[in-house]
Each structure stands twice: as structure tokens, then as C-alpha cells.
């Protein structure tokens, strides 16, 4: 800037400054917009692995034998099977879903015509994420810092890398060796290959719905 000020062409320098100022305003706006989008839309995606790590590690730090996060509302298997909250959402889908599911679930019924992309739920429109590499903020995870980097390709999260995780202090390393989730992430892709059988939950889900129905029947005596 000092160079510009000493320039023999003050009008040029003024133009440059004006341009820089405009650029700064626009850049700030874009950065804010992107951050906003990531914060809201992405709330259920990549960043959650951070609080997740923190929670997990906290609980481990407090009690190493506890493997389940403690700050989450307790739910039980019976809560899965609990009829009441499901009543409104599940019941309507039963008549339409069951018949179409039955034939496709015989293990011999293997995929033949497969697109390359997994259809996403309609709640997630395409282009949710812009392609690029995004570094998350450094988050204090109680026992140290955690920072991740998300790589987006084709509008989907292609990879999530740890840029930083606690490894400095001896205690951290000990906790870390237990608590760091050695997890990998990827966008699911439809496979076009022959298999002997398929593992899936469709029928568990249906059995669940049926169980729910009879539970409701009993509950409304």
C-alpha cells in the first residue's frame, strides 16, 4: 500500500484501493455465506464428527470403561421398539411398502441394472456442497485439539481427513489410543458385482413395523 501511496499516479492508487476495498467486502460476504451454509446444512455431516470425538473422549477420560457417550439422552433397544412415537410416521407406509419389498428381498434377486451413483434422499438436493477442500476449525476436544479436512467432489463428501488430533502429551496419547476412532469415510457407491447373498435390514425393519403394529394393538386394549 505504501508503494501505491508514493505512486506518481494517485488516481491509479485510489482506483486500486477502491478495488481492494470492494474485493474485501465481496470476499467477506462470500466467506460468510459459505460459512453459514456449512454451519447450517452441514450440521449433520462432517462437523458432527468433531463434537462426537469430543464427547466420546470426554466420557472415556472420565471413565475408561464406559464406551458409550454419556451426554446423549439414554435410549434403549426398547426405545427402538417403542410404539408410541413411531405411530404417526411408520403406520402410513406399511400398506404401500410391504408388497413391493417382499419379492426383491430374496437373496437370489441380485442387482442387474445399476446406476453409478447412489440416489440420495430427496431431502438432500444435489449441489449441497461445492467441490473443493474445506478445513474445519481447530476444536478443543478437552484432551487436545482436533481438526479435520473435508474433500468434496461432485457435490458429495469424498473424504474426511484428520489434520490434527491429540498426540502431544503422554496422557493424551493414552486416551487417544483408545478414543480416537480409527474410522474412514466415503460416499457410498453402487456396486455392480455378483454376490452369493446380501446383508440388509429391510426385513428387520418390516418385522419391526409388524411388531409395532401388534404392540399398538395391545397398547390400545
Amino acid at each position, binding site marked *: 500500500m505504501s508503494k501505491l501511496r508514493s505512486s506518481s499516479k494517485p488516481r491509479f492508487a485510489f482506483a486500486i484501493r477502491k478495488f481492494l476495498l470492494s474485493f474485501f467486502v465481496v470476499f467477506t460476504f462470500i466467506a460468510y455465506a459459505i460459512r453459514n451454509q456449512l454451519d447450517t446444512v452441514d450440521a449433520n455431516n462432517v462437523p*458432527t464428527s468433531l463434537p*462426537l470425538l469430543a464427547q466420546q473422549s470426554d466420557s472415556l477420560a472420565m471413565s475408561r470403561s464406559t*464406551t*458409550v*457417550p454419556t451426554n*446423549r*439422552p439414554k*435410549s434403549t*433397544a*426398547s*426405545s*427402538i*421398539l*417403542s410404539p*408410541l*412415537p*413411531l405411530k404417526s*410416521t*411408520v403406520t*402410513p*407406509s406399511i400398506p404401500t411398502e410391504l408388497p413391493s*419389498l417382499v419379492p*426383491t*428381498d*430374496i*437373496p437370489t*434377486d441380485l*442387482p442387474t441394472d445399476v446406476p453409478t451413483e*447412489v*440416489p*440420495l*434422499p430427496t*431431502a*438432500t438436493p444435489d449441489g*449441497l456442497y461445492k467441490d473443493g477442500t474445506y478445513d474445519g476449525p481447530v476444536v478443543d476436544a478437552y484432551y487436545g485439539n482436533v481438526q479435520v479436512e473435508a474433500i468434496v467432489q461432485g457435490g458429495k*463428501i469424498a473424504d474426511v481427513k484428520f489434520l490434527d488430533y491429540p498426540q502431544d502429551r503422554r496422557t493424551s496419547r493414552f486416551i487417544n489410543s*483408545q478414543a480416537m*476412532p480409527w*474410522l*474412514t*469415510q466415503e460416499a*457410498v457407491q*453402487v*456396486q*455392480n*458385482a455378483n*454376490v*452369493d447373498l*446380501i*446383508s*440388509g*435390514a*429391510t*426385513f*428387520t425393519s*418390516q*418385522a419391526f413395523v409388524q*411388531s409395532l403394529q*401388534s404392540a399398538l394393538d395391545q*397398547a390400545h386394549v
Partner: protein
Amino acid sequence: MKQTRILMGMPVTVEVVDAWATTSTLDSVYDYFQYIDDKFSTYKANSEISQINQGLLSVKRSSADMQTVFALSEQTRRETDGYFNIEHDGYYDPSGLVKGWAIFNAAEILRKQGFENYYVDAGGDVQLAGNNEHEQAWRIGIRNPFNIAQIVKVLSLTNLGIATSGSYIRGDHIYNPLGNHETVSEIVSLTVIGSNVYEADRFATAAFAMGREGIQFISQLDGFEGYMIDEFGLATFTTGFDRYIIHDKVR
């Protein structure tokens, strides 16, 4: 020899590759599932579990199998910090545990008869042994939760159990009643591989109830690997899971 029958409200497929398997071999397995269904079905008014739920029979005086299931359920409840619980409002529904337990026991029937290459698959939860008819490890697909006609992963497994928990039907959201309509539909599929299907199934069920934290729970269990798919189609899997993945796309 391979057959599929509908039992306990789901397709039960048994395949035995060993050449000396006969129809009665498969019958012995299906008979066992029928026995389990008669005893543990909460839909059947005369089943033993229904008798218990109606207060006509105490657990103490129930059959050995029933007491075993109750003991295993209690053990699992403790191991999962309460996420797995067969009791709800005074009623017992152990079907979440019985399924994997029954598949494992059914596979044991085959093993004790001397068979070495087979699998028992009940509703997508499987106990595997030996190889397939091509003398290779069994190839198992993981179903695409967004399109049940597709698979999203191909695995090579032998002498292991695999189980998948999830809700594939859109709208089939699972709510946590304790969490004031908090949904656990943030994940749609959780596959667990373990030494046997009983272990894989009970931990898959409990971990699914934990939502996103479920995969971390699995990653901290010795001898278990998991593959979780969230509502956005993003998969998270344990490092050890990778060794089961077949990366080539064409056989």
C-alpha cells in the same frame, strides 16, 4: 443345496455346499427356526414369551432356552449401557436378540453334522462357514439403504457372522421416545461383522440405537468391524473393515 422359506416373518435362506447335504439336512435347520418361532414369537398368543407377558408363566419357571435368552439379554443390556433392552412397559420382546441367537444355533446344527461350507441367512443376518460353490470365500453384498435392489459394498467373508440394522423405508423413522421425538434416522444402515452372527446382531442393534456414535461403539469392541451409512449417503467404517472389502467390481 439351497432353499429359502418364509419363517418368523422373514425369508430364511440356507445353503449347504457340501455335496452330501440332503433335503433333510435343510429340514433340520428349518425345524429349529420353527421351534424358535413357536416359543419366542410375541405374535402368537400361545408362545412361551406371550405366556410370560400375560403373567401366566414366570421367567424362573420357563424353559431353559427362555432363561438363556433372558440371561443373554440382561448381559447385552449391561454391555451396551442400556441401549439394548428387551423390556418395555412391563412387556418383554426379546426378538432383537433371539434372531441372531437362533441363526447361530441353526448354523451350529449344520456344523455338528460335519458340514463345512454353508451359510444360514435370516432376513439379512448371516452366519457363514467355509467357501461358496466356486471354492472361494462367500461374497456378501451390503444392501443400498436408498434402493433395496442395489448393493453398495461387496465383502469376502468366511467363518464369521454379519448383521445389518437399519431402516430402509423412507418415512420409517425411528424415534427415541426419551428424547422428545428425537429421531435416530440420521443413520440408515449399520452393518457389523463379528466372530458370529449372534454377537454381530446384538451389537448392531444396540449401536444403531446410538445413532452416529454407534460406529464408534463398534470400533472400540475387540473383534468387531462396522460399516455405517448416514442419511446423506456418507459411509463411515472401522479401519479393520477394509480387509473384508472386495474392491474389484466385476467377477
